[in-house]
């Protein structure tokens, strides 16, 4: 069991190294002296004795070396020495080291940052128990272009009771707009309008959430006649109640009704993609008055173990007709209308629903940034090649002194590893900062933003990337300079007289590679710039959005029951605001363009023939007079509603320009025509045609829309929009002063109404372009980095080549070459590399930009203008990068250069 004494020996070596070495030295020396003594005893004179012994002895250093190699930990010590040596070599040239490390840090950092985003958004499983068994349950009418529908309450009851594929299914409300539901909370401090979510009792168990405090909803809480309950989110509990554990059992006023707090959610919980929820409410569906229809809730379910998505789809398909037989149709319609919809199941794994199709964007980005990393590595490889070239003598001497080729190569690789290690650490730091900035920017449309961060997996990724990069660029100088010809360099003597073609070729290849990659990235950025530009030129349907202030108000039924009174309040608010100084007009509506909301409802045109199953759907909006004028949507024909005709419930409507042109070719002929929604819905007269509004964003077509008054008679009853947006046009729209005046105006009408979602219209407009802007910024950054790195690489190669050729150029000039000729020579060298790179880059870009086509608008993926402009620009910059060293070469005094060795 020799490990104990061996460990002792190792420790002695580590801690008392000098003593150990001294002892070894003395011992070997002693041995030597004894042998000499013997010779002397035999009568050999001292000098001769020494000489003979030396011949026989093999060299004291060699003996000591052998002992060292035999020691425990010798291999480790020699590796450590190699690394030490490599580190010292690098530090002797701090400029070079800094340049290499920074280049690598940029490449590795950018790649790591993007990977973190991809990891958080696309790769990480959802943070619920057993997330692969979670599905999103929706239905889809066979006529696909009528949009993606949710589930109705009737569906929910039947699926829950009769499904064989699901362990449990839960319903949740999808708010009118993508911001989701919001409620008024009063009684604790100032009235507040906070985001909330209504769910059925099954939802939290499906997600596997255990509350931090209290309990979750049970089916008892979901009964219509049970006491009202509420669960708070951790964030709300902390900010409103200071983490007071006695909140359980207390009541808070939500939308005018007291609710008992029964639980608090854990800190890390987020409901699907909703960050910032304040509370969860039970949906309390009443089976007794459930009709067919109203497919406007979201649903999630947990599959039974072993059940596949296909089986679940089949199960739902089986149950759809059962639903139609189990519940009555609403007063307006017949069961046949629902059968004619031909609904089909539309199940998705829950993660896919949450992530959406943003993964495509992210992978494209990842590819782009990967290219930047490659360019960075190529740059560093070039730098290493240059350095290795200058060290050839050193390698040759070391080889002659007995160092194996393997050790010299290992030394070079050690240098690469050290560079990569520093670059990786710095890059990780850069990535951390970049991610913080990215999350703060909070680009909308990027789901699961709260899951993006640097964790263990990301650090491992950075490590792996650094390692791979170092092997990649480290092997380049090893192959070129530590190869078999290592001894030959000594013979060439001093600096080489002229550049060997072989050496220049590998550097040239790297430069070509870099230029090609830079071109691809720059073309991509150019295409995104053109897309962005095209999007900004689309008329969104409103004017000067920065001068329009908007906010939401919600008047719950518990506060004001009568519909007409609600509308009167809304009228008073908008008229009061309109009298504020600096305000030119104000109006109220159920939706704002581009806020993510908007209903689809049916509308028929009188005197048109419809097939029995046809129910054409259009975008509906409910407006008060003056709203469209406030936004700046132009009135193409006719007029807007008046307040009196709304109160009198005169059946009037307005349509959008597209609607008018689709049905009557000419907007003015739409006036006086009648449209309506089916048997129980009166025909309405079209009194006005307004300009098209890009409700879904400027990159999508403006939908054909119908505008109804915010107070209408519908299905035998009155309907008023309670969750409304007010728009206020004023040059002061962005000022805090106007905001507080507006608040006071609202509260002078109804002091209990909180305002929420206060933004200028500009906010929504910018948000709708958010995805494009995000891609644009990222790709431009990548393109910029690629350009910078590529040009620096090109400059470096040409400059070095010129410095090597000083001698040759001197000869040429002495023999009669003009400055012009030298200039041309160097420029030709540089530009030929550039042009080859550009050529390859164009071919590559043609192939690769197709990956971008889904993100483009108004420009083709092979747009010649973009390609041409980028090529010219890149060539121009490259020309400049070559010109500088060329000019220096031309300035060389032949006499000086000929003398220079």
């Amino acid at each position, binding site marked *: 069991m020799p490990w104990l*004494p061996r460990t002792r020996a190792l420790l002695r070596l580590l801690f008392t190294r000098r003593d150990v070495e001294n002892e070894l030295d003395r011992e*070997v020396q*002693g041995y030597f002296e004894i042998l000499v003594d013997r010779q002397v005893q035999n009568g050999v004179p001292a000098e001769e004795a020494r000489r003979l012994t030396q011949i026989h002895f093999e060299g004291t250093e060699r003996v*000591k070396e052998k002992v060292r190699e035999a020691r*425990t930990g010798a291999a480790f010590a020699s590796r450590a020495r190699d690394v030490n040596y490599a580190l010292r070599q690098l530090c002797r040239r701090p400029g070079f080291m800094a340049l290499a490390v920074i280049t690598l840090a940029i490449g590795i950092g950018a790649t790591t940052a993007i990977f973190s985003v991809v990891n958080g958004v696309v790769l990480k499983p959802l943070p619920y128990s057993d997330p692969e068994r979670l599905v999103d349950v929706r239905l889809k009418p066979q006529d696909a272009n009528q949009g993606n529908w949710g589930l109705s309450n009737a569906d929910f009851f039947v699926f829950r009771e009769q499904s064989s594929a699901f362990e449990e299914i839960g319903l949740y409300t999808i708010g009118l707009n993508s911001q989701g539901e919001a409620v008024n909370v009063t009684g604790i401090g100032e009235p507040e309008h906070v985001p909330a979510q209504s769910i059925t009792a099954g939802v939290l168990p499906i997600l596997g959430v255990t509350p931090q405090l209290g309990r979750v909803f049970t089916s008892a809480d979901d009964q219509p006649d049970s006491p009202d309950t509420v669960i708070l989110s951790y964030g709300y509990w902390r900010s409103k109640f200071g983490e007071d554990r006695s909140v359980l059992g207390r009541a808070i006023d939500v939308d005018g009704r007291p609710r008992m707090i029964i639980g608090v959610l854990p800190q890390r919980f987020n409901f699907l993609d909703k960050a910032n929820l304040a509370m969860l409410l039970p949906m309390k569906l009443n089976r007794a008055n459930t009709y067919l229809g109203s497919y406007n809730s979201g649903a999630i379910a947990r599959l039974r173990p072993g059940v596949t998505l296909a089986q679940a789809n089949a199960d739902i398909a089986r149950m759809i007709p059962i639903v139609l037989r189990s519940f009555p149709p609403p007063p307006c319609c017949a069961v046949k209308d629902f059968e004619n919809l031909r609904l089909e199941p539309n199940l998705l794994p829950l993660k896919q629903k949450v992530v959406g199709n943003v993964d495509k964007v992210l992978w494209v980005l990842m590819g782009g940034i990967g290219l930047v990393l490659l360019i960075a590595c190529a740059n560093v490889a070039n730098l290493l090649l240059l350095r290795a070239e200058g060290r050839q003598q050193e390698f040759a001497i070391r080889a002659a002194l007995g160092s194996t080729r393997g050790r010299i190569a290992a030394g070079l690789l050690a240098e690469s590893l050290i560079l990569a290690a520093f670059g990786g650490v710095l890059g990780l730091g850069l990535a951390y900062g970049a991610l913080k900035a990215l999350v703060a920017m909070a680009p909308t449309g990027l789901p699961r933003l709260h899951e993006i961060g640097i964790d263990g997996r990301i650090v491992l990724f950075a490590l792996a990337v650094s390692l791979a990069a170092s092997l990649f660029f480290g092997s380049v100088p090893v192959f070129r300079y530590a190869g078999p010809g290592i001894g030959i360099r000594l013979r060439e003597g001093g600096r080489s007289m002229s550049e060997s073609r072989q050496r220049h070729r590998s550097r040239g290849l790297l430069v070509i590679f870099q230029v090609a990659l830079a071109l691809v990235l720059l073309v991509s950025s150019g295409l995104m710039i053109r897309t962005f530009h095209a999007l900004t030129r689309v008329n969104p349907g409103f004017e000067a959005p920065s001068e329009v202030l908007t906010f939401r108000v919600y008047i719950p039924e518990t506060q004001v029951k009568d519909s007409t009174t609600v509308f009167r309040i809304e009228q008073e608010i908008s008229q009061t605001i309109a009298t504020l100084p600096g305000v030119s007009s104000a109006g109220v509506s159920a939706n704002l363009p581009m806020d993510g909301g908007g209903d689809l409802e049916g509308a028929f045109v009188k005197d048109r023939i419809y097939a029995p199953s046809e129910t054409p759907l259009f975008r509906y909006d409910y407006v008060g007079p003056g709203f469209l004028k406030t936004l700046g949507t132009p009135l193409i024909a006719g007029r807007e509603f008046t307040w009196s005709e709304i109160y009198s419930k005169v059946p009037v409507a307005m349509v959008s320009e597209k609607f008018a042109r689709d049905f009557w070719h000419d907007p003015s002929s739409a006036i006086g025509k009648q449209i309506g929604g089916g048997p129980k819905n009166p025909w309405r007269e079209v009194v006005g045609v307004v300009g098209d509004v890009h409700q879904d964003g400027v990159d999508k077509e403006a939908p054909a829309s119908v505008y109804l008054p915010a107070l209408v008679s519908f299905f035998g009853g009155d309907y008023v929009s309670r969750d409304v947006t007010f728009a206020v046009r004023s040059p002061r729209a962005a000022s805090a002063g106007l905001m507080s005046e507006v608040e006071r105006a609202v509260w002078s009408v109804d002091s209990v109404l909180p305002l929420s979602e206060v933004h200028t219209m500009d906010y929504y407009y910018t948000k709708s372009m958010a995805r494009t802007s995000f891609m644009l910024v990222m790709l431009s950054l990548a393109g910029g980095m690629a350009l910078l790195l590529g040009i620096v690489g090109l400059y470096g190669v040409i400059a070095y080549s010129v410095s090597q050729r000083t001698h040759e150029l001197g000869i040429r000039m002495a023999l009669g070459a003009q400055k012009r000729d030298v200039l041309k020579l160097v420029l030709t060298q540089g530009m030929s590399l550039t042009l080859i790179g550009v050529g390859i880059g164009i071919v590559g870009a043609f192939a690769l930009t197709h990956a971008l086509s889904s993100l483009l608008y108004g420009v083709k993926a092979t747009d010649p203008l973009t390609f041409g402009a980028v090529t010219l620009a890149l060539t121009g910059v490259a020309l400049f990068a070559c010109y500088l060293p060329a000019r220096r070469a031309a300035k060389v005094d032949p006499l000086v250069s000929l003398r220079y060795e």
Partner: protein
Amino acid sequence: MVPMTKPAELLQGTLDLLVLRTLELAPLHGVGISDRIEQVTRGTFVVGPGSLFPALHRLAEKGWIQGDWSELENKRRVKVYKLTSPGRAQLSKEKTNWKRVLTAVNLVLTEES
């Protein structure tokens, strides 16, 4: 000092065995070990410092021999090595092993076809 016949090749493990055995009889310093081995094997094995020193230090690291500094008559300081008790145990193990190896190799060499 040049031997009459060329010395045979000596494997590392075998050298360890010879050193341990040499020290079994009495402690010796480096030159002494080398001399003794050369003597006893009648010049078949000539162990130079390049092989001896690494072997001595390896054996010392494993704790089988121990080196102590002492003085010769002519005031030269040398490191004298002696066998330790773990070393003795190792030596008997190696002796047994060597006999087995020897027997086995002989069997193969004298095998009738």
